[in-house]
């Protein structure tokens, strides 16, 4: 066990993957010499070489498009998109090629490409650096979409993503990069929770609180605050946004009868909509209240001095929890 930041945990996970499989590569803007703007790839080029860790030209479609070609050749590229807001130039390659190739070829072409995307707000950044575009990819069949929430899980998840034979969009909660926690770097990967399963991070009985990425910590804090008030909140970290682990979610809601979902992305047509719709279908007779969603407003991400009002925080999440008890 070592205490690592989330950024460092990812770095260690990447390193282990690079060391264990000569086909694994890292590519992206500033990932080599600089080690990435968040230092997630720090030191990897120095130790593994320029052929394994590639500083690319400044072109996101190029990064994903050439990664696809490298994957066709048998490589397992891990692409870094520097910030969430810069993934859009790569949309066509992701949606039309990366996601569809296995289906198109009836399984003859696998594209084990990982696209790492630091996502979400809360770091006081300028425009385009705080987006949460996960639902674009969750809606796109053929991709796996996951989000890590803490160092230990990040360490395992990045390795699982690289080992997956499917393309994985890997979201990293950028404002949690410097969160520290114990990570067991000696544990075998086979012991890790599979990539497509949710995990209950705080058990409870009165209401189910679902989240992923940066808000998992906020939800945990909310659960602790609620505990103090005598309300027992079960917090589930979804981890996989597509496919979704509905077994875990439904079992919890069937028990609690209430459900709240929190994410930073706009509520409108966000991932919470899918979860709410599905939970309602599967738990119709158990629900004491409609599934409530807490998330961003139907506006572009605002400037830094307004983001505290945009981002769901502990109070807004507890407010939604309270509202489900008003039914």
């Amino acid at each position: 066990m070592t205490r690592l930041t989330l950024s460092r945990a990812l770095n260690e996970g990447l390193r282990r993957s690079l060391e264990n499989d000569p086909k694994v590569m890292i590519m992206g803007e500033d990932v080599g010499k600089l080690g990435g703007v968040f230092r997630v790839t720090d030191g990897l080029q120095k130790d593994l070489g320029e052929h394994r860790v590639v500083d690319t030209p400044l072109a996101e479609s190029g990064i994903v498009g050439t990664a696809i070609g490298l994957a066709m050749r048998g490589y397992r590229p891990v692409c870094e998109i520097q910030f969430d807001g810069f993934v859009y130039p790569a949309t066509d390659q992701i949606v039309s090629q990366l996601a569809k190739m296995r289906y198109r070829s009836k399984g003859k072409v696998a594209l084990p490409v990982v696209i790492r995307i630091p996502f979400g707000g809360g770091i006081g950044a300028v425009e385009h650096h705080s987006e949460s575009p996960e639902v674009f990819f969750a809606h796109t069949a053929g991709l796996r979409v996951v989000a890590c929430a803490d160092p230990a899980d990040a360490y395992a998840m990045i390795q699982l993503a690289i080992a997956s034979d499917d393309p994985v969009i890997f979201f990293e909660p950028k404002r949690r990069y410097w969160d520290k926690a114990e990570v067991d770097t000696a544990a075998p990967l086979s012991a890790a929770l599979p990539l497509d399963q949710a995990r209950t991070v705080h058990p409870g009985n009165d209401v189910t609180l679902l989240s992923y990425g940066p808000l998992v910590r906020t939800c945990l804090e909310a659960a602790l605050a609620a505990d103090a008030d005598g309300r027992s909140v079960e917090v589930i970290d979804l981890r996989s946004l597509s496919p979704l682990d509905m077994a875990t979610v439904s079992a919890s809601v069937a028990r609690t009868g209430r459900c709240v979902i929190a994410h930073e992305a706009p509520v409108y047509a966000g991932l919470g909509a899918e979860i709410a719709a599905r939970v309602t279908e599967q738990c119709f007779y158990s629900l004491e209240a409609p599934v409530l969603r807490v998330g961003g407003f139907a506006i572009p991400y605002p400037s830094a001095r307004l983001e505290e009002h945009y981002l769901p925080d502990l109070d807004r999440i507890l407010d939604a929890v309270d509202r489900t008890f008003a039914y």
Partner: protein
Amino acid sequence: MTTETIQLLTPEGERVERPDYPLGDVDIRGMYRDMVLVRRLDSEAVALQRQGELGLWASLLGQEAAQVGSARALSPRDMAFPSYREHGVAWCRGLPPVRLIEMFRGVNNGTWDPEEHKFHLYTIVIGDQALHATGYAMGIQRDASEDEAVIAYFGDGATSQGDVSEAFGWAAVFHAPVVFFCQNNQFAISAPPERQSRVPIYQRASGFGFPGVRVDGNDVLACYAVTRKALRAARDGEGPTLIEAFTYRMGAHTTTDDPTRYRLASEVEAWRLRDPIERVRAYLARTREADAAFFEQVEAEADELAATLRAACLALPDPPPMSLFDHVYASAGGGSGSAILDAEREQYAAYLGGFAEEGAE
């Protein structure tokens, strides 16, 4: 800048000497045969579409030399990334034509193993494959393989797409062993090349720092020689080349297109005089490298190919409904790889089962 077009065989079938573009041991009869066969394959497919057997077909008529010439320059280990009109390249790579027919019939979306014939799946989104080809070439570099190169096919219209420019930039920066083969067939559906570029397309390469060359795309020998040279340079670590094969799309863009809306019959007639097959036939006849028997035999082969293809097309079974759910994800056991999809599959199977029961009642 002047526009020099490399030509080794005139429209009249006269050889032009170009020591800078050697032909080596070239099999001109084989080239002729390939061109005749792919033209026939193509016209049979058009006929099948007209008869409602295919959903669509993109004819290569007029582009036989560009495709056969360039494809024959490939070594067995070189990898080709086509667009959606490269039936002639597919043929030369040994892909059974019925694989193409399946796709245009709508039986599947183009399902073959790219490594088997070193011919990748068709790409319909314009330009996307240019980056795949470049990435694949970067993989060859990492494998330190010295006798492999990649060729990426696309059209004149594709040169406007950002992805194609990005591919040019990447290939140049990384010195990737890839040849960009642009068939300038004078049209992107209805748009002329002037809508894509103010200067001849081959010149685009120079701005990215690698050579560009224009070749007579209706001259199979020139297409062969120019591509061969570029592939060799790529394999020798000299980086990418852009080849513009100047040719003409004699048919419609696809079977749904009506070219009379945007071009004159007289233009088509003028290009007919530059037919890529006729000039080789003239050459072979004049030099007596082939006689009437040969030409007849090739025709007979073409007839047979067409008949076989038609029969194969008509025999294609529709895919079973439940195959809808296969191969979305890598899967272990009987699952689809996604619990969400498993649920949808089960529900749909039950739904279809309901009809079967109704029918049985």
